[in-house]
């Protein structure tokens, strides 16, 4: 066997897994999006693009899309901003910094359902820690109906999402920061640049690959934040925390309209692909050069 063919064999396991776990479900999902299958009956009809048309007029789908954008923006801004600040403080490999990085990373290894259950108790309006703490320090007027207020609930869940993943993003940013050659920072400092200028002109541009990774990963993660929402609010109250993934799930498994749910999934796939592409273009992760 020629070397080329032998090497090609190494691609087979990965390609097989990719085809079985990604390509096949994607193609099947697209196929079912053109049908009116209810998920149970053995037969179904082809309905063309009517599921996609229905989706554009669907009241709950629209709400879910708007909620998802709110959720995503909050998580991306808060998670990226805080993790960057923490990473700048913890970039040096001192014992204290390594310990703190590990501490911040702990929520990431917890099951998201456990995280959701813990925070559901924390947010309980009458017996929860959050309001109890605020009342305890004399800030009783700041207490909130964290998960019961239709205007606030989506941000309460988004805050939990950010809390759970900031540690992970800190690690990515620290890796990015440590990859920046020290000479460049020193040269800028010798040229008289201040801390803010060094960050703007040297650190941030060179951190772009890590930032692009963090932002795109956070975006995808926030679109997929199914388990937190499902456990904490179930999409309520009054659809105020319904996002695309819970909409797809409910449409498929509660309303038994797999065709419509599949159309939602295809839309979801396209949306994430477009957003990720745009983010990479905007952050220009590919133009970093030392």
């Amino acid at each position, binding site marked *: 066997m020629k070397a080329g063919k032998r090497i090609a064999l190494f691609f087979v396991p990965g390609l097989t897994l990719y085809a079985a776990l990604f390509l096949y479900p994607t193609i099947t999902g697209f196929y079912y999006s053109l049908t009116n299958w*209810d*998920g*149970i*009956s*053995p037969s179904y009809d082809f309905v063309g693009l009517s599921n996609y048309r*229905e989706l554009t*007029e*669907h*009241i*709950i789908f629209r709400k879910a899309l708007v909620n998802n954008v709110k959720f995503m923006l909050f998580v991306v801004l808060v998670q990226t901003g805080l993790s960057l600040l923490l990473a700048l403080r913890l970039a040096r490999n001192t014992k204290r910094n390594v310990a703190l990085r590990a501490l911040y990373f702990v929520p990431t290894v917890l099951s998201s359902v456990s995280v959701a259950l813990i925070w*559901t108790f924390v*947010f*309980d*309006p*009458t*017996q929860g820690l959050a309001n109890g703490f605020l009342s305890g320090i004399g800030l009783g007027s700041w207490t909130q*109906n*964290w*998960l*019961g*207020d*239709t205007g606030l609930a989506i941000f309460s869940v988004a805050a939990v999402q950010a809390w759970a993943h900031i540690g992970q993003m800190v690690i990515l940013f620290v890796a990015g920061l440590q990859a920046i050659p020290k000479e460049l920072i020193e040269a800028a400092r010798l040229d008289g640049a201040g801390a803010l200028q060094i960050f703007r002109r040297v650190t941030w541009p060179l951190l772009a690959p890590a930032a692009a990774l963090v932002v795109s990963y956070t975006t995808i993660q926030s679109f997929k934040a199914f388990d937190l929402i499902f456990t904490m*609010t*179930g999409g*309520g*109250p*009054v*659809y105020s925390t319904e996002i695309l993934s819970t909409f797809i*799930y*409910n449409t498929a*498994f*509660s*309303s*038994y309209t797999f065709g419509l749910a599949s159309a939602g999934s295809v839309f979801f796939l396209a949306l994430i692909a477009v957003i990720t592409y745009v983010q990479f273009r905007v952050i220009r992760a590919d133009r970093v050069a030392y």
Partner: protein
Amino acid sequence: MQTLRYRSIPLAVMASAMLFLAACGNSGGANNAGGEAANSNAPAANAGNSGASADPVTISFLHWRGEDNAAFEAIIGQFEEAHPGVQVEMQVLPSDQYQQTAQAKLRDGASGDVFASFPGAQFEAIAKGGLYSDLTGAAWLSNFAPALIEAGQKDGKQLAVPYQLVYNMPIYNVKLFEKYGLTPPKDWDGFLAAAEKLKQEGIVPIAFPGADIGPGQFMNTMVMNNAPDLDIFRKVEAGEAKVTEDWWIKTLTQIKELNDKGYFQQDALGTKDQGAGALFAQEKAAILATGSYQLAQNKKNNPALVQGLLAPITVPADQAVYEGIHTTTFLLGVNSASKHPEEAKAFIEFLSGKDVAGQYANATGQNVTVKDVVYASEELKAVAEWTNKKTRFQPRFTLTDTENQKAVVSSIQAVLGGTDPKKAAEDAQAIIDQQLGK
């Protein structure tokens, strides 16, 4: 070593092929919507005392009541003793996942020879998918109270038998009511006066789990006399009635009134089932807006509690048609793709015996639909008294489209969140209209 390796290749291929064929054999049932016909040749003798000579048969029992495991295990032991050669394997899924995942498991017949389902949307979906065997004409159906197994009927066929009887009406603390000289009110003014008295005494009148089950439970008693028509929600789904009409606006307005007057605990919309249950068990609240299924848990949390059921009457006493709400649930059915339908039916028949049903009821604290059962606990006896009162089937479950059900329940959450009842009803109707237009 090399030889052994080469020899093992055909063996591995054969084993894989056998596994593949076995898998195909199982999945063949998935396409067999009329699986019952294919199974009709199953020997009926197997269902009974087939003796040790017959091949042992294992049937799967799929349900969501993890808390009933011990009770079912004891009953299964007795069934296996009475039916040598038949074994029952219990498979329990969490109730919140059951609605979503049961159907997938049932489709190939490998799980759930006997399975439980919820009335309403899930029953309709499974019936539409042809997954129920027809139980019509089975002699043991006479063990059940006829009116209580109607939720398992469709197109004149008995597709499933509801096993549990639940009263979806608020629970009240009898001792607290007595302490403050209150009796269950007979009309809306009386209900408001009782709530006000409790509030003045520093007790939360109603613990309301507004974040999850509260709205879906409380709406039933609130609407039962505002819209006495048993088919009102069926008419809504058929486009013959609207939730923007007076009966629903009045229901929403009355719920809003309870909230605005502070008769629910603070921030009721953010309180979950456990939180509201804790308020009631700790006797900080006098009424818990859930249902009879919570009685046993409350008693476990506070053995000193004396509990009763109380439905808010939303109209003047002389206009009240119904006294409460019942639901027959835990619908037991036989999977049409089952390879052992006779054994599966024999298991349901065994469960329908009044002694076995009584054993289940007393072990789990759940009332049952089987006739002449003797209940042991005070709570079960208190609930059983309601069988003599005028109750109606849970209106929420007559909404068979989940989107519609969610829209109606959400309109209650909306008014609790401050939305005007009329606007909340219009928003719900918009979603119902969208479903109607499909």
